């Protein structure tokens, strides 16, 4: 080892042999990672056992495949509240309201959890609250809120707004911490008052980040809203899970097709808008 260091420290360019001899050797690190992963896998394997297919497993798998290839077109283009378009509209509506309310609620939280602005202990308390909100899974939030609002789409809206706070706050805090405060000094020097400093010094720096975060979260919320229906909080999930339980595979296929198309469209649009925001 000593010899390699000596060669690296010398001023002359290395010969090929010397460069090859002084290449980084990380085999022990890789072996360690492999050993740890193998040990974890061995431990995990202890309680995950393949007990064969369920008694109707094959028929169900065939049914799913069939349903996906031949979705129920009547349901797919049905404009009544049971039809796919209305269910999708409701899912998106839940996500829109949930994201907007969550995005607004997150603003005070993130300013209070940023230790550049408030004293350290206040920031720590609010960070703990945000972590707590984030840890409770959205399904549990939905089940708790159902006791308040009853099983309807409004429950989904409230659930999404609370769940969004956690992640949105995390990204808002990053945006706030990245603010360039030198701009405020130069605005001060040119005689701006407090309001002008916020309007021209702070808002232009954080608003694109905030909007980009909210749009990103909207993506996630649409996906979340499709599963909230499982517990009765509105959206397409309720109808989907009912059809799955009663083995009506062509209807399942119709709902899934609608969902896939919706998510792909939303993902394409949100990526476009966000890349536009990032480039200015």
């Amino acid at each position: 080892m000593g010899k390699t260091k000596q060669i690296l420290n010398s001023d002359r360019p290395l010969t090929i042999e010397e460069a090859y001899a002084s290449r980084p050797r990380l085999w022990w690190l890789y072996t360690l990672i492999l050993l740890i992963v193998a040990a974890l896998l061995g431990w995990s394997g202890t309680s995950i056992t393949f007990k064969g297919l369920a008694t109707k497993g094959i028929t169900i798998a065939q049914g799913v495949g069939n349903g996906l290839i031949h979705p129920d077109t009547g349901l797919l283009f049905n404009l009544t509240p049971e039809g796919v378009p209305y269910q999708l509209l409701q899912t998106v509506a839940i996500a829109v309201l949930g994201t907007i309310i969550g995005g607004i609620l997150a603003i005070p939280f993130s300013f209070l959890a940023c230790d550049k602005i408030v004293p350290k202990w206040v920031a720590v308390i609010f960070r703990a609250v945000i972590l707590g909100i984030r840890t409770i899974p959205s399904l549990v939030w939905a089940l708790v809120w159902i006791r308040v609002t009853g099983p309807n789409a409004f429950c989904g809206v409230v659930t999404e707004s609370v769940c969004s706070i956690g992640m949105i706050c995390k990204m808002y805090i990053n945006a706030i911490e990245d603010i360039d405060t030198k701009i405020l000094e130069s605005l001060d020097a040119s005689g701006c008052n407090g309001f002008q400093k916020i309007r021209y010094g702070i808002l232009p720096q954080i608003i694109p980040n905030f909007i980009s975060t909210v749009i990103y979260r909207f993506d996630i919320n649409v996906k979340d809203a499709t599963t909230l229906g499982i517990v009765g909080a509105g959206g397409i999930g309720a109808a989907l899970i009912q059809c799955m339980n009663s083995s009506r595979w062509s209807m399942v296929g119709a709902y899934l097709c609608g969902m896939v198309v919706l998510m792909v469209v939303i993902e394409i649009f949100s990526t476009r808008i966000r890349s536009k925001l990032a480039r200015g």
Partner: protein
Amino acid sequence: MKKKTAEAAYKTPLLDRIIKPRVITLPNGHTVQKPISRTPFIVVIVLAVIYISAKVTGFDFGIIINRGYQLGYILGRIFQPNWSYFGGDAANTAKLFSALFDTIKMSIMGSVIGATLALPIAVLSSTNINKNGVVVWGLRILLMIIRTLPTLIIAKFAALIFGLGTFAGTMAIIVFTFGVVAKMMYESIETIDMGAFEATESFGANKFQSFWSACIPQILPTYLSYCLYSLEMNIRAAAILGYVGAGGLGILINEFIGWRDYESLGAVLLALFVVVFIIENTSQYLRKKLS
């Protein structure tokens, strides 16, 4: 063919063709155009979308004000966890911890297998390595469809096909991890420096050898960091899979909410909180080391 000039290539936005931009003449005789602001239009569209969404979802703030005390009551009980699940009562403790370990095991197993399967697919679906456009786009569309399916729905399918239990949950997590890691990986494979690859090829190495010695060292740290990230996400996801019968903490969550036993629910959530906290911090530490 004549090349288009920059001016001709610039297409005037639709809005500026309908409402002409204001023309300002500068003191030196030049003119500049000031297009009208987009903000009012965006605000109107957003307000309309909000109005429609509120109509569709039956938004009613009164309910929260009138019945909000219910939430306070439930949260109050959740925040007084039932300590008999942490050593107070042997049967309860065993029940909680076996479910907790099932959740952790499911997510570790699922992350490792899913991430391993994702690597070759990610390589095949990155445009700088695989020049075959049909394969690339076929794989990308497949990955996109996999990512749009919610984990709970995949778990429900798996539970119907493989029977209730941890195996179904592991399958769901494998599928989910596969979709996410493969997508993140092909995006970062496309940004690597291909110079080393070409140099190795020019020495006479075949495609696989040059990929192994020129590209793998570049993507390995990113790959490991994505694996850790997916493990973080999977712990959260695995916790609720039990709700559709796929093993882990979700079974307990479902049971306790059904019985309205919110103190025990609090105990489950506390255990989950501790595990998520430990795993997130460990993985964030490791990811910082990797980058």
